[in-house]
């Protein structure tokens, strides 16, 4: 219901001074509250960050352990690979040496290389050539050497040469 030509002035129970005072205190309290809120927030954020960092640390430690295990495994694999490589090199050299041992007049048909032995199958024109040119070097390498001959129709001999290195020497070789 409005029948007046003008609106009533705004009334307040507080005088100008009191209003100023209350405004001042209000602003101060507001700023304090704002600071308190800011600190509470920062504290909360700090706690949160701390928890995150702790969790991260745990994760990292876990990762380090896993990595250590992986490193050990990789090191073992490395050692194994080196060993395999060395073995392969030795084997390659052995084969190379073996083929160097075999003279041109003797023909090998099969060779079995074992852990501590070597079995050669082949054809030789005669037993002397075998004995002097192949058995002699084989004897210098292996401890025990056994040879068997089978005569062929053309007068040549098929031979089987079985050579062994004794266990002690084999271990040393390893």
């Amino acid at each position, binding site marked *: *219901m*409005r*029948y*007046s*030509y*003008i609106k*009533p*002035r705004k*009334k*307040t*129970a*507080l*005088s100008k001074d009191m209003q100023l005072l209350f405004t001042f205190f209000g602003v101060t309290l507001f700023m304090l509250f704002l600071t308190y809120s800011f600190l509470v927030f920062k504290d909360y954020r700090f706690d949160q960050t701390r928890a995150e960092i702790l969790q991260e640390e745990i994760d990292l430690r876990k990762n380090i352990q896993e990595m250590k295990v992986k490193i050990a495994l990789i090191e073992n694999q490395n050692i194994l690979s080196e060993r395999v490589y060395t073995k392969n090199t030795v084997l390659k050299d052995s084969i190379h040496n073996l083929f160097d041992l075999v003279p041109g007049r003797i023909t090998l048909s099969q060779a079995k290389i074992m852990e501590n032995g070597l079995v050669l199958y082949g054809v030789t024109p005669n037993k002397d050539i075998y004995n002097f040119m192949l058995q002699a070097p084989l004897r210098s390498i292996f401890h025990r050497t056994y040879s068997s001959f089978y005569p062929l129709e053309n007068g040549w001999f098929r031979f089987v040469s079985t050579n062994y290195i004794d266990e002690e020497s084999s271990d040393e070789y390893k």
Partner: protein
Amino acid sequence: MLSKILEALYTKVFINIIVGDTTSIVYVEVVPKGEVTSSYSQSFSTNVLDTEMHDYLKTAMSQSPYHYITILDKSLHQGAVPTCNETKNYVDISTLNSICIDKKWTVYTAQDDIKDLKYEYQSVGLDFIFSPFIILSKFFKDKINSSLSIFALVEEKNISLSIFDNGTFLYAEYLHTQTDDLDDSLMMDTIIDDEEISLDIDDSIDLDDIDADDDIGSLDDFGDIEDLDSDVDIEEFSEAKDIEEIVEEKEVSIDDFNDDYNKFIMIQNAINNFYHDEKYESSFVESIYIADSIGVSEDLKKYLEEEMFLNVRVRKISLEEELSEMARLEIL
């Protein structure tokens, strides 16, 4: 929220100022909890805010921070029109402050006068400025809704006249009887064109010729509503009489011309205007209710009864109390 609580706790002081012709009355009501516990008033022999009145107002204001200063609008350029939306058909609304009442009619006053009033009272401030027409409509609420009558708020020098037909607003005019300002008020209130004034002065009827017979004749014309449009002479006659009245009043002041008669003439003219102005819906009015704030003499009543054949009812009004009640209604 807090201010609402404080407002409810605090005592309210309603300070009402009634400015008369030569005196002003300050009426103070103390309202602690929605009910008036005490009231007092003081009369000052001034019609402007002088030091004494200012001090008195300040003392009253100091009783509570929730004090409301109310004043009755005395603008000569105020009135009311029977519409809320089509006000421009009646008055130029651009320079006026207006309030729509019950979505039926509008009270208005000059913006400049409101500004002047606020300026005059700026040292104490004003909270409410009420139109006397609103006071009148509230005061006669019971009668307004049940009859076709003239309702007049009679003050020392002013008459707020309105006509209601069973709750429907028909017409209103603010009449000022002060001699010095009479020209202005008539110019505004009766909406007379300058040309008409100049033309009609010579043909005007001498006041001495105004007797009961003439009035009866004119009243017959009043009754003949259908002929109003064509009967221009009546309007000219009445307006001419106003002008003659101005001249006469100065002359007869020596004879202590009856102020009530002056009021009667103004009421009569206003009613004439109502009947003749095509903008307003005319109805024949047989009764008048007077809200008497100054002590209307029997003479005015007699004039209205005998010369206009109106049924006159006079009801005493305490303007300051009505004003205070309006302010309370606005706040509480």
